[in-house]
């Protein structure tokens, strides 16, 4: 609920502009939207050729064998029951569970040699999202030394030079990622400060689509027009108060932007999936993930430079009390065939085609990846275990050359055979495409210990 003059600020219970314009918690740390904006001056370097990134975060760790790196010549206990199928790209075969993506392989590149060395979801997730193990913590474990690095989206937002939207520059669609009740570290901005944390949209139903968090909704009876009137009133109050509260001198603009998101029809239109044709919504799949991908595209159009779509909140599938993540230790084949692959195949295909037809694919990079892959050896529970030794990621758009395979795995899909890629290299690639300044990054102590994969462009 948008809180307007309902409670006192924290400083000695006096009425401040903060309490007047408390727009609600916009981060996991409880900072409000104005805080977010205040600390996010969009100072940085010139933009690169890529203007937006959509990260499809396949939390739980998809099997590379049943997606983009099948091993038909391996023994049955490794290759599994599914076969590879040809794609539009010579030499690239993908699992038959992805027939639509097979037909459009000229639009994306596959990295088949992603790797790191951590098997725990939370630790691996931190590495995948930040490029570094610092501060990562396994569920119930001891944190790794160091401070958690900023998430990929936070880094991208830090280096944006031009504000093109009423939206914050890093939006996550979907729930907070966790496993065994503990949040994944590395989803936020870390040392860049909570102001660059993602703005999260996690309120979705098939019937109503996506909605802003409760804290961003107008109170009953409070229209945008009335809010604007109050805004002008607050502006006058500000003028009076300014002399008393020097620290707030720069706040006007930030609060105005906070109100922009609440009141701007243009900003709020991005959430209105109902304005899309039913046929297009069908094209993405009427699943949560499919509709989240449409929202991601709409946010790109609204000028948001980094959107992360979480496939699920929990890494684990529902058989473990999760909410449908890709952590398929059990009955992997049945689930991949019945649910995971059809949903993913349709959503990613729809997203790439839609971006292309709107002329956005060249300027929008789409990445689909999880925190690791699955073990070559099939378990006694008809599943595959965690496997960071090698896994696959898909990149498209934003200047990425489609129809290529970067690196390869060995004959079992257990180790990289050539050109191993650490997640830091993938993040470096994203930052380079977005025109981030590596020198400045290094000066901030956030250097990525890998080079960008320039050969992908």
């Amino acid at each position, binding site marked *: 609920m948008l809180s307007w003059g309902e409670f006192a600020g924290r400083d000695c219970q006096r009425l401040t502009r903060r309490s007047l314009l408390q727009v609600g918690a916009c981060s996991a740390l409880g900072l409000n939207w104005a805080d977010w904006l205040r600390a996010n001056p969009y100072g940085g370097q010139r933009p690169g050729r890529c203007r937006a990134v959509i990260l499809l975060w396949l939390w739980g760790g998809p099997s590379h064998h049943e997606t983009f790196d099948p091993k038909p010549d*391996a*023994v*049955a*206990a490794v290759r*599994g*029951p*599914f*076969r590879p*199928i040809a794609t539009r790209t010579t030499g690239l075969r993908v699992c*038959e*569970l992805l*027939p*639509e993506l097979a037909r459009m392989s000229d639009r994306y590149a596959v990295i088949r040699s992603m790797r790191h060395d951590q098997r725990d979801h939370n630790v691996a997730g931190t590495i995948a999202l930040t490029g570094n193990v610092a501060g990562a913590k396994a569920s119930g474990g001891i944190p790794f030394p160091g401070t958690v690095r900023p998430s990929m989206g936070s880094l991208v937002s830090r280096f944006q030079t031009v504000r093109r939207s009423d939206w914050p520059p890093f939006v996550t669609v*979907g*729930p907070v990622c*966790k496993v065994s009740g503990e949040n994944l570290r590395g989803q936020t901005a870390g040392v860049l400060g909570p102001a660059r944390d993602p703005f999260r949209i996690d309120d*979705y139903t*098939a*019937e109503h689509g996506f909605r802003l968090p409760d804290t961003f909704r107008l109170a009953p009876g409070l229209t945008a027009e009335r809010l604007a009137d109050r805004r002008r009133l607050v502006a006058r109050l500000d003028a009076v108060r300014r002399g008393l509260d020097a620290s707030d001198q720069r706040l006007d603009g930030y609060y105005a932007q906070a109100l922009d998101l609440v009141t701007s029809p243009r900003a709020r239109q991005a959430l209105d999936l109902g304005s899309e*044709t039913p*046929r*297009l*919504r*069908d*094209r993405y*799949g*009427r*699943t*949560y*993930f499919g509709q989240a991908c449409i929202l991601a595209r709409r946010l790109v159009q609204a000028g948001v430079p980094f959107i992360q779509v979480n496939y*699920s*909140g*929990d890494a684990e599938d*529902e*058989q*473990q*009390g*999760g*909410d*449908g993540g890709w952590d398929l*230790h*059990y*009955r992997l*084949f*049945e689930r991949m*065939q*019945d*649910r995971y692959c*059809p*949903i993913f195949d*349709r959503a990613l*295909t729809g997203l790439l*085609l*839609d971006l*292309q*037809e709107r002329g956005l694919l060249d300027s929008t990079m789409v990445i689909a990846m999880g925190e690791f892959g699955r073990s070559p050896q*099939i378990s*006694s*529970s*008809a599943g595959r275990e965690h496997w960071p030794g090698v896994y696959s990621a898909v990149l498209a758009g934003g200047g990425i050359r489609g129809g290529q395979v970067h690196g390869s795995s060995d004959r079992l899909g257990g180790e990289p055979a050539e050109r191993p890629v650490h997640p830091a290299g993938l993040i470096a690639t994203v930052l380079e495409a977005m025109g981030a300044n590596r020198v400045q990054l290094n000066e901030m102590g956030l250097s990525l210990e890998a080079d960008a994969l320039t050969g992908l462009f």
Partner: protein
Amino acid sequence: MSNSLLCCRSATLKSFVIRALAVLACVGLAGAAFGQQPALVRLSRSFHPRFFLSYSPDGSHLVYSQHHANRRASQQVLMSLRIMKADGSDDRPLLAAYDRDVQIQQHAVWSPDGKRLALSGGGNDTGNAALDVFLCDMNNFHASNLRKLVKGGGVVGEHPGWSPDGKQLVMTNITGSGLWIIDADGKNRRSLIQPGGNYTRFPAWSPDGKRIAFASDRDGNSDIYWIRPDGSELTRVTNHPSIDSHPRWSPDGQWLAFVSYRDGNSDIWLCRPDGQGLRNLTAHAAHDAQPAWSPDGKHLAFVSDRDGGFDIYRLTVPADLAAQAARLPERRPAGPVTSKKRPDGLVCHFNFDQGVGNKLMDRAGPNHGDLMGARWVKRGAGHALSFNGASDYVTCGLDPALHLTGPLTITVWVNLNEKPHNHYVVCKHGWNIYVGPDFVPRFETRSAADKEWNTLAAAKPIKSKAWTRIAAVFDPAAKEMRIHVDGTLSARKPRSDNAIAAVAGYPLELGRYGPGKSQHLHGMIDEVRIFSRALSPEMLGNSYENERQQLFAKE
């Protein structure tokens, strides 16, 4: 595909026409003649992912499971069972009263009398991966008394299928690689088919009770099989590199509906139980899956994302099926080529000499093996296979010619490392050769009554790290078992019954005890022969000498 997005108007018009035709078909104005796309009706429209459809025996209702994404709080159902009328109306939860305790509700199947549902259930946020078979009572299409089939902590299985008399259930388990049958009162659970491959699912009993269809990758990729309820006549119905899965019998038992990717994506197909008469019923670019026959055999319900969600549709089965069934009388199914009977009785022969690849070629029949970690090692001019004693083995075929319950001879060369466990050398359901930690070779056969093992130990141990040939003979005519070491009769044992109890569905395995997936061999194996007759001591002496000369010539 991209054009489809650009051509909304024409697509919408096309969609309208298709739906109009579907409506016409539904009111009987359009028939589904041979070669035409079957008439189609969309039964649900809420886009929630749905799976596992089952018609009530009177055809008036459908039960199905619905997945709830993004539910991560405790005590919330994650895969709920729902029921709706067969026309899609009156859709409602079926087991809401049990959602807090049984959060996974799937694979529901109606008992033939309509009074019970069997389903796979589990969950409760315990981190427990196990599902188990549950039953609930059905009264006027409302469920009550949800309970485990077998009370207690043990898990009997999942993915149940009723026998047509309602007295038994067939099921698989979490390994997803074997089948079991259990009485409907939860007693008398027994193995129907040994775990094999990685993906044995969707068992379905034929309406006449004589066959159980299922999907399995036991021969390398997912295909449709059936087996007799007594474990005999394992038969491969389909044989295609693409996925074939989710088989369901037509009410008259003449057809199997199943899911196949053979046309490039998931569609609903039909074939006869012998694999003939293949037909793609849906032939649509969308994901079509989860078929369920209406009890009158006139319709198939299935799940499709053709309109964006995982909704339920009903197609009218082509009217010519009965005529087609008459034209295609069932024949022996197309399955793995059965080995021709050889005059010397040799049914399986591995000489191990290809030395490369993941296959062990059978020189006498179709029972080629898949190497599960075993490594090729050079042996002179030839090769043998090395096993690590922990996880390596070779899983071979289960051609009917290998289903040996009568006269039997096995010969094998071994070179073993010391290990404080049994080394299983050659193993099929009902008979095997293993070497104990005392290095004494043993020949085991199951009694005809399937009550006990008859074990015959050789007279003395063999040497470790040296090549030795072991031969084992079951000779019903002589009413004895014999074991030979290096061509010499080592021990014999009377055997009063004249048959071995063996289940056909178990593959031959080298290097481990197959049913237990344990007791792996540490060492090497070479030159395996299996005969469907009892070779005499003289013949075995001669064959030993011949093989020894050949094998040592290798070195």
